[in-house]
């Protein structure tokens, strides 16, 4: 084979792009011609120089909001996937709901209370092919769909549509009838917004747009020191606590904290170890003692996900905060009546069986002083306060960066992961930054 210097095969050979046969042919040609060998060498030198220079070109990044948007979409798809996998069980849940509805019809919005871990065994109607349609509701009663809060209504739309609702009156008794006294929230919360906020403030030195701040994502970015479920408690534990609201005098915070059991050591390699499926949470308020309430955060379209059961992985935890307005008669912090008026119900299925388990709890005791609440409680409330400032929320009350920083510093816990001291750093940086816009 004779090769001219202008043959493209020479370059392909120099770059190692030829198959064995062609490569052999070129090889024998250049063995016979020293000028071709020099040519190959020159091509390789230039290629190396080109590679080096091109590698040194700056590497742009996607803007953080684009990345965050994509991650949210991926998380939505993840959740949809998990929901699909478990959807066959939905039919059976509605049977349970209808049964519960009959039992509590007329009981002023209170849900049936079951002792923790009590299994409910409805007739199993397994339907793996077609998901059960939304059932007719034969009796008025609890509906396991997200109920809009009068204060932060659920919205659907594109992420840029989210904002705090305009009416700034939390406690204006704007609570319609008993049918509106139930709330729910998504259990698997992303944390893209929190990472975005942190990056913007610490690395870019500016405040995020209010619409990019998701308070529930910020709260759930942090790890809290919740007790794992005890022996015989099932895979999930749930607790509810009250404390006086630090930013609005006379209001009370309800914290709902759910913790999944610890993961088995050998499961690590395979990714998430699912400990519960089809999990959903409902919070109900008795209007006799709760004149108003709002779920803090959760004002994006993902709240719709709360209507679907979600898969829960080992070690997972979620925290939700409600701001409550005690009814007039209940007094400043609502007293014991307020605690009794809040019920958190969690239902889920064990991953290996179709049995639905339900757990219901109420807060223990009346709302104490905020300063006396646990570090975890105070820290979560501080993150919420910070989020409300960034969102220009009409509910932020007396929250200020300085106040939040002080509050955070007093709620560090043992901060094993260093997350809380980093949050304090974000707060310090945010103090000096002008608002977005």
């Amino acid at each position: 084979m004779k090769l001219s210097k202008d043959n493209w095969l020479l370059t392909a050979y120099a770059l190692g792009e030829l198959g064995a046969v062609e490569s052999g042919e070129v090889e024998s040609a250049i063995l016979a011609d020293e000028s071709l060998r020099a040519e190959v060498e020159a091509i390789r030198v230039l290629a190396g120089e080109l590679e080096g220079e091109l590698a040194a070109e700056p590497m742009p990044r996607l803007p953080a909001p684009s990345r965050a948007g994509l991650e949210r979409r991926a998380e939505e798809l993840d959740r949809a996937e998990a929901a699909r996998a478990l959807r066959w069980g939905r039919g059976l849940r509605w049977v349970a709901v209808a049964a519960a509805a009959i039992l509590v019809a007329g009981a002023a919005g209170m849900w049936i209370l079951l002792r923790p871990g009590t299994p409910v065994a409805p007739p199993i109607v397994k339907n793996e092919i077609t998901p059960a349609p939304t059932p007719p509701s034969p009796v008025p009663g609890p509906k396991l769909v997200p109920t809009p809060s009068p204060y932060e209504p659920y919205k659907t739309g594109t992420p840029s549509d989210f904002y705090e609702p305009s009416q700034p009156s939390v406690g204006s008794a704007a609570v319609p009838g008993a049918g509106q006294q139930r709330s729910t929230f998504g259990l698997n919360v992303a944390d893209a917004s929190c990472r975005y906020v942190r990056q913007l403030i610490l690395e870019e030195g500016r405040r995020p747009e209010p619409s990019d701040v998701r308070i529930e994502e910020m709260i759930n970015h942090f790890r809290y020191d919740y007790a794992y479920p005890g022996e015989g408690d099932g895979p999930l534990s749930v607790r509810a606590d009250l404390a006086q609201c630090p930013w609005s005098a006379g209001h009370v915070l309800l914290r709902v904290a759910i913790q999944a059991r610890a993961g088995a050591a050998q499961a690590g390699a395979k990714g998430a170890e699912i400990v519960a499926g089809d999990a959903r949470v409902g919070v109900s308020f008795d209007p006799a003692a709760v004149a108003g309430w709002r779920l803090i955060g959760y004002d994006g379209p993902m709240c719709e996900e709360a209507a679907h059961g979600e898969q829960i992985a080992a070690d997972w935890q979620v925290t939700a905060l409600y701001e409550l307005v005690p009814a007039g008669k209940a007094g400043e912090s609502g007293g014991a009546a307020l605690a009794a008026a809040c019920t958190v119900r969690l239902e889920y299925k064990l991953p290996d069986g179709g049995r639905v388990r339900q757990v219901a709890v109420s807060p223990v005791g009346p709302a104490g002083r905020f300063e006396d609440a646990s570090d975890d409680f105070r820290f979560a409330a501080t993150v919420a306060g910070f989020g409300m400032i960034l969102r220009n929320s009409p509910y932020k009350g007396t929250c200020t960066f300085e106040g939040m920083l002080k509050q955070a510093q007093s709620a560090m816990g043992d901060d094993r992961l260093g997350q809380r001291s980093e949050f304090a750093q974000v707060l310090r940086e945010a103090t000096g930054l002008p608002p977005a816009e």
Partner: protein
Amino acid sequence: MTAEPNDNLAAWLRKAMDEHEGALLRYAGRILGDAERGRDVVQDTFLRLLESGRDLDGGRLAQWLFTVCRNRCLDVFRKERRMTLMSEHVERAAAGSELAPDDAASGREQAGRVSAAMSALPPSQQEVLRLRFQNGFSYKQIAGITGLTVTNVGFLIHTGIQRLRRRFQVDGQSGREGEAR
């Protein structure tokens, strides 16, 4: 989220973005001549990845991303009816015709002497040279991305390298002349 499964879509997407977003932004920005529209295209490319490219990884993933990204860039051109130099070059290159150097591109800021010289090459040559030497794709992968044949790719790379070498000889001489003056 405090306990995130390692094998979920979100984690996989993050990894894909970490690995490829920079290279794709450079690529799209160059084709479109506009970093901002490049960002839109890259974002759209990852969105499409979520919808349809889920079982890809490694080199197949990179090739898929570049292919989709390139097609989206050309879509943008078509949509805006802005058949710029680049897409014309792409189309003519696909038809196998030789191209004149693109002098308009030579004003671009470049760090090194080779890449500076590269900006004087026709865009179709620049594109395959970058895909080969910046992104590490094989001739075959480049053919897949651009819709050219492997021989077309080999020819374009060969011609590009020869031109760069000639350019250096010329530049080298003029440099020496400059010093002599």
